[in-house]
């Protein structure tokens, strides 16, 4: 897959799905102890509030001066669509509050769920080569107390060329999820949403 075709991927995670045990191919089961321990859960599953940092905006440039979100992009509707897709999953007891813009940054200890693409050495380090990651903090009882989504502020292709977030008006948002048909367990499910060319 050419990186310049990937365009962008939004990883909206944070423990938004409530699901039953299913095949390992369908889920990444968030749990303590490297996903082999007790399942993690969140108490705000019915009204999860995500804040979108002001860096996630058309024309955003990283610290190298490279535009990472093209000027024609409209990321807020894309993010809202990702949430809506989850909220509309019948078998998932998930609800979201409307997105709002914030100047808060990713902080694993502030209890705020923030999406950001701010370019710092710290964020480049934790994101690594992923397009985006979710950072979640959980307490001793396995309840998730914080979950931030950090987008890669320096996505490049193999030639070192940046791959910015493209105009969304020409693309559709596809949520790549495979949920179970039952709803009894309390697990956390990362959601992957990709921006793709419409058919």
């Amino acid at each position: 897959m050419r990186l310049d075709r990937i365009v962008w991927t939004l990883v909206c995670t944070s423990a938004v799905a409530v699901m039953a045990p299913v095949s390992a191919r369908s889920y990444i089961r968030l749990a303590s102890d490297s996903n082999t321990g007790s399942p993690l859960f969140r108490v705000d599953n019915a009204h999860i509030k995500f804040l979108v940092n002001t860096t996630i905006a058309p024309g955003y440039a990283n610290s190298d001066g490279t535009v990472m979100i093209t000027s024609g992009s409209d990321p807020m509707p894309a993010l809202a669509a990702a949430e809506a897709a989850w909220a509309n999953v019948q078998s998932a007891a998930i609800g979201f509050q409307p997105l709002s813009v914030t100047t808060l940054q990713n902080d694993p200890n502030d209890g705020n769920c923030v999406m950001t693409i701010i370019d710092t050495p710290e964020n480049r380090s934790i994101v690594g080569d992923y397009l985006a990651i979710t950072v979640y903090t959980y307490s001793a009882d396995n309840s998730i107390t914080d979950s931030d989504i950090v987008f890669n502020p320096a996505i490049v292709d193999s030639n070192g060329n940046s791959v910015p977030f493209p105009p969304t008006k020409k693309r559709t948002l596809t949520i790549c999820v495979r949920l179970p048909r039952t709803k009894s367990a309390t697990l956390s499910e990362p959601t992957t949403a990709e921006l793709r060319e419409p058919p």
Partner: protein
Amino acid sequence: MRRLAAHLAYRQSRRSILPAGIQLAVTLFVVTASAAVSPRLSFDQMVDRSPVIIEARVVGSRTAWDPAHKYIWTHYELQVTDTIRGSSAVTVVSEPGGSLDGVNQAFSGSLGYSPGEHVFLFLFRTPLGYWRTTGGSQGKVMVGEDGRIHSDIGNPDATVEAHLPQASPREPIGVSAFKSLVRSLAQSRAANETR
């Protein structure tokens, strides 16, 4: 050597296919092993983007805060058995996440390592100075007890040779053949160390 020669000969004749086969095998690891998404890198790209490539065994781990005392990192100590590219001084691979001081942090896509694991690691240096695997889990190639290359997801079918094109020699890739292949490619291509 006959197997390696066959692989290399095939590679020279169908240069775009063998890397693609390995790419497929390697990238299959990442698709299924991680919640986070990383770009699928070809074998050539993996080598290009990895200034350090080593063969090692995992011997232990420790957790520590980053310099800003914001995120917890788990640092896995390695016994490096061969340095295919770069500095032999790299003896630690790091992943964000862990538990420390009563705080539990986890990161989607973060890789785990177990003591005793025999691995090939394609590494880059993060801005914080930690060494991480290139392309997420694509940069961690495990060696099974059978001496063959396996994925890190415990799928016995996900061996490199299982995904080589049908036209290629359908022989298992062992450690020495894999290492020779990587070394050959690493010697012919310069590493891109920028991130």
